[in-house]
């Protein structure tokens, strides 16, 4: 996978790749929750967008260098994750999903009203700056490799979290929560930690995206964005390691390709949802894993 991404920008339009990487990270972080903890968060866009706004604001209005702006974005997303997670974790299954959706909607309306987000206009003209004072992020290729590095770091964090005792406990909770509780694991704490970890990484994706596109807008906090990440993960394969990345790639490519056709994008996305839920529940990577009989 790494080799592909290192070579790709010399053939494929780098901004497209960067978009795919950001969304890939977004989807991986989302997958951490649904694939490994079994929690469907239908409001994950809130963290993507608010991190984007925080980073954009920090970079443009406060003039922070990109690394500090990104940290600001991650921090905002993590704090939001803590607050929303604390409320939502009390409920299970469908109710959890509905709660996260509604609370994310609150964040959306807050972003519409708050003066610093400039509502419909968004925060425009976000400066990319120089990373650590050395790397000029205005050069597309430099920016690309920075984004790639960020993605890999995020991916690694998730990978380590899953393949660790912590990850095992999460799986135990997903499989049979009462039993995990009876073994002495404080399920709620673990769920909350996983939630905050997920939202922080989503924040990382959102912050990076704001710098790549130099724009933070309402689209990133709207609930349809939450739906998109569910689509990416479902298509790629819930609970697989590489699935979300593949899913993100496919969905972004589809959007690009179909952009000229306007609303067909939504129709195709919906169709993929329907097909996946009915017949293709394991997703692309999930089916692949089953074929080669190795966990992916």
């Amino acid at each position: 996978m790494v080799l592909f991404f290192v070579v790709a920008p010399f053939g494929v339009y780098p901004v497209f790749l960067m978009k795919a990487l950001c969304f890939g990270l977004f989807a991986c972080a989302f997958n951490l929750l649904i694939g490994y903890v079994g929690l469907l968060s239908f409001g994950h866009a809130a963290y993507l967008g608010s991190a984007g706004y925080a980073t954009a604001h920090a970079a443009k209005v406060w003039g922070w260098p990109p690394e500090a702006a990104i940290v600001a974005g991650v921090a905002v997303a993590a704090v939001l994750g803590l607050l929303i997670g604390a409320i939502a974790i009390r409920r299970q299954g469908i109710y959890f999903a509905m709660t996260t959706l509604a609370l994310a909607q609150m964040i959306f309306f807050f972003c519409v009203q708050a003066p610093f987000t400039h509502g419909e206009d968004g925060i425009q003209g976000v400066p990319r700056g120089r990373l650590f004072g050395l790397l000029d992020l205005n050069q597309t290729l430099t920016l690309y490799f920075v984004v790639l590095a960020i993605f890999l770091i995020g991916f690694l964090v998730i990978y380590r979290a899953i393949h660790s005792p912590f990850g095992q406990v999460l799986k135990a909770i997903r499989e049979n929560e009462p039993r995990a509780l009876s073994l002495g694991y404080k399920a709620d704490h673990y769920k909350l930690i996983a939630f905050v970890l997920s939202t922080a990484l989503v924040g990382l994706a959102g912050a990076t995206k704001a710098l790549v596109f130099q724009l933070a807008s309402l689209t990133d906090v709207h609930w349809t964005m939450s739906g998109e990440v569910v689509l990416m993960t479902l298509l790629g394969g819930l609970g697989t390691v590489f699935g979300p990345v593949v899913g993100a790639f496919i969905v972004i490519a589809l959007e690009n390709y179909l952009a000229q056709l306007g609303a067909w994008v939504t129709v195709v996305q919906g169709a993929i949802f329907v097909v996946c839920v009915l017949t293709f529940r394991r997703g692309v990577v999930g089916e692949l894993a089953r074929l080669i009989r190795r966990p992916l």
Partner: protein
Amino acid sequence: MTFRIALVLAAMLLAAGPAAAEVSDGVVKIGVLNDQSSLYADLTGQGSVLAARMAVEDYGAVAKGLKVEIIFADHQNKADVGSAIARQWYDADKVDVIVDVPNSAVALAVNQVTRDKGKAFLVSGAATSDLTGKACSPNTIHWTYDTWALANGTGNAIVKTGGDTWFFITADYAFGHALERDVEAVVLKNGGKVLGKVRHPLNTADFSSFLLQAQASKAKIIGLANAGGDTTNAIKQAAEFGIVRGGQNLAGLLIFITDVHALGLPTAQGLIFTETFYWDMNDKTRAFAKKFAERNRDIHPTMVHAGVYSSVLHYLKAVEALKSDEGIKVIEKMKATPTDDPLFGKGTIRADGRKIHPAYLFEVKKPAESKAPWDYYKLRATIPAEQAFRPLDQGDCPLVKK
């Protein structure tokens, strides 16, 4: 894992140079970026694409041996979609100039991208006067109209005829804010008062709550600082709530002929507003409108369509003279050359990127006065070009030397 990380880091450090592909200049590629599916689709949309095509045909590109291509896309009124399309067009699709772009928020974003990439941007659809003010750029020309011209034309006329207390219903984004700001300034300058303001999201279907607030304020004039579908919805619903019967008047601050067509003359009659083009002004505009309507399902050209035609025509003339389509240089040439086209007549382009031409105050005819479909306006006043737009020194544009 560690080896892979090291590989990536090494690649990162090596890749420090620029990597953008070179743009070929064998073709002049024009990108028409506007709203193709939402509330502004009728007044811009495919009509603008047609206007651009007609400009290329009338210019005689084929005969002069200049290869011109036109592509279009829908920005869906989202700044991120619009700026992503602009970026991709400039980076990967070799587009040289973007035209139209209604929706001021998107226009501001595209303005920035164009500046960063050194290309050209000819705005016909968007209204915010900031495009020639604090956001002015050497790569952008603001063509057809702007919020200051509307405020100065419509606002002035209404206040002078007794509409001295206002309540604004404003679209909550860059355009609405700019229009509200500019009209408020005119109202206050003429001794009027603003009794209240309310903001509504773009593409609002139900104005009942806002109209009630406007009614409660008892302002003589309810200023609609919005456009397209929002304006027509507000006007139709105002009739439901008996606003005009109750003694208040609606001021549509930005109205296009497609809006009047959608409302119908019985509802729209008496509306007063400012535009810079009307298809029935003279023989040349009528000829254009006839050809346009034939190819556009009989929908007659709005001033935005006219602006796209006019700007593309002038752009092509500048490209021919310069023998190059390099963004900043073409814009400079366009500013240095006076304009002359069948739709706007003779005009000039200022240092801040503002195209100057006369503005007109129109009133919508009563149904009995209209003799044919699309025969909707009567001319109330002509504002000469020098007075129609904000004076050069009042705009805070960094390009203007004080």
